[in-house]
């Protein structure tokens, strides 16, 4: 059952501090509104703690293998992560903390976060064309790497880094959104099961034959690599002729994509090498420290700047 679109009055009845409420977007289990609280712009997220199968087979859609409890747990985790992890490149929590509300017959949970003034970088993707200049790619890499680093400093992995979860602010900076799938190493109640978006999965994110179950920030680095590759070339590195998410996942495990600079002449080889290293099949072959990646990114452009 799709989310109904609530009126501003219905929302203000359960979040009285909000004004100027406007519908923004809708996802599988959530509906999002913009609003103003104490004169500042925020978004309000409403979630239905009752998972439903995806209405379509959009390969970009996130896996829905969650229980009723997991939806609430995930929202709690998202809020906690935004409160704990402070980075200019991670979306911030707003003044409305997690609360249960009822609108009509719907039992919902809601919270607020900052309203990012900008555009999702997903909109920059163009088939077979670069979506960004090399300098912008480097900046994107640096900013998302910082976000991944801050999460990891709190023993967290984002698990859903993708163009749809990154926005570019009007200032030009990038910000990572949607921490609903964050995995916390210190919270054993949260499963390491396959959550996230399959076509951005790292090989280890779907590998359960590995007894050591290595899943750390390097998994997010792989997803960042897929994102950078797509924006550099206009091509997803692992979709190729794949028809289903399962085929893409098989490619992720087995296929070595062509280096970006061989597809787009304007990509510096050094930057192309970094992207390919992020796409290494084994975590040990990526970067063991974010600062190593950031140094390489800064040095990847001929002029050295970002």
């Amino acid at each position, binding site marked *: 059952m799709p989310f109904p679109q609530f009126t501003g009055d219905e929302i203000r009845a359960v979040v009285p501090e909000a004004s100027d409420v406007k519908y923004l977007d809708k996802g599988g289990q959530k509906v999002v509104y913009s609003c103003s609280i104490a004169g500042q712009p925020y978004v309000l997220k409403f979630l239905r703690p009752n998972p439903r199968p995806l209405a379509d087979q959009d390969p970009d859609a996130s896996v829905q293998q969650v229980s009723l409890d997991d939806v609430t747990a995930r929202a709690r985790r998202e809020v906690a992560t935004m409160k704990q992890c402070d980075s200019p490149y991670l979306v911030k929590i707003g003044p409305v903390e997690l609360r249960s509300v009822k609108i009509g017959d719907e039992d919902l949970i809601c919270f607020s976060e900052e309203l990012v003034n900008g555009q999702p970088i997903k909109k920059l993707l163009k088939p077979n064309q670069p979506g960004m200049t090399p300098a912008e790619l480097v900046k994107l890499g640096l900013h998302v790497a910082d976000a991944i680093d801050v999460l990891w400093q709190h023993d967290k992995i984002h698990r859903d880094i993708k163009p749809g979860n990154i926005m570019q602010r009007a200032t030009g900076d990038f910000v990572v959104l949607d921490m609903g799938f964050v995995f916390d190493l210190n919270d054993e109640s949260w499963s390491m099961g396959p959550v996230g978006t399959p076509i951005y999965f790292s090989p*280890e994110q779907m590998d359960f034959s*590995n007894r*050591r179950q*290595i899943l*750390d920030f*390097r998994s997010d680095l792989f997803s960042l690599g897929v994102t950078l590759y797509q924006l550099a070339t206009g091509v997803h590195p692992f979709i190729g002729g794949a028809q289903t998410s399962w085929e893409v996942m098989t490619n992720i495990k087995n296929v070595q994509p062509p280096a970006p600079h061989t597809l787009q002449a304007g990509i510096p080889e050094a930057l192309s090498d970094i992207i390919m290293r992020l796409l290494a099949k*084994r975590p*040990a*072959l990526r970067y*063991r420290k974010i600062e190593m990646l950031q140094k390489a990114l800064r040095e990847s452009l001929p002029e050295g700047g970002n």
Partner: protein
Amino acid sequence: MLLAQVGYGRGQKVHEGLDEGTITGAILSPKDEGRDRLEQCIAELRESDGNAVLMIDPQFYVTTLNTPRDGHLPEYDYYAAHAGLSRTQFSPRQIERYVGDCLNYQHTTLSGVSYLVSPNIMFDDFRDSWSQIALNMAEAAVDHHGTLTNPEPLLVSIVTSEVALRSATGLAEFLDALSSLEANGFYVLVHRNSSSYQAAMDPNAMANLMYMVHVLASVNDYQVFVGYSDWLGMLLHAAGASGTASGWHQSLRQFNMARFMPAEGGGRARKRYSSAPLMSSPLLEPELEDIFRAGRINDVLTGSAHDGILRGGPAAGANRWTDPIACLAHWTSLHNILAPVSTGRIPNRLASATQMIDRAESLYARLAARPSFINFEAQTGPGHLAGWREAIIAFRAMAGV
């Protein structure tokens, strides 16, 4: 960087090797030195060479052997308190104590060491429970190191075997875990299949060892020291190793746990000359003597400061070819072959290594052909070179270099 792998009968060899500039430092052996002597030795070496790279191999892996030949190790509290360990004695709390005792000893007592080397146990399979214990000990070492005040950099010990190194899949998983450690580097030992010295190693295992070194050192920027590596150090440096080591006995030139088990006895080792051009250590008699008689001695000499003893004939110089001199000459040969493979990009290093192998094979072929007809024993013949070349080819394919 070549380090002395120190064992019984140290004498002045390490000082002399440092003076000659063929070794850069030493890995000391608590099994072979009492506590006082070990501390004194480190202090003296540090005083005589401020830049020497000095560390100990804690040899904690001996704790899992039954009735080991552990020499002076029982004098060390970190060993004595935990000797005779079984698989059930590695709970997190116990591991914390083993690691803490060992690192605290080095940190507080051994002033002058360049690195703290973590204790570890040996494992034969990258996927068995001992390997998980090894990883737990590595993680505990990193954690404990973080609690010390101004500690020397940490090298995490990894003690595995030639058998384990045959599994590329198990190794890859293990490397994923190792490369998440916040250590400065690793001290790697590989238990060889045979306790008798072999310059050759199974090419598949060797390629995997090179890959391990490459991933840790070149890709992840750790310092990687491989102990007891002798001539194989050439391949390991080509793969990115920071340092390799060799000593004066055959038992210090390849690692085997037999070194820590009751000895079966054995005669005095025959005298050898370590030839950089051949990248092996032929016997003074008859092999080197035959080469001399064939008028080819200059082809195989390394150019060490001690070669003059043999220029008039190895048999004639044999009495003066003492064990310490043979050791110093050995280090010179290793030092010379490590130099071309210790700097530059990995593909270039591998090309240099392959060139040296080609030249050695060619020299062996010339010596075997008429009119020289030199016969070598299996241990000193060219057999190891083909295996090394095979290992390089396999490594290049694995690492994509």
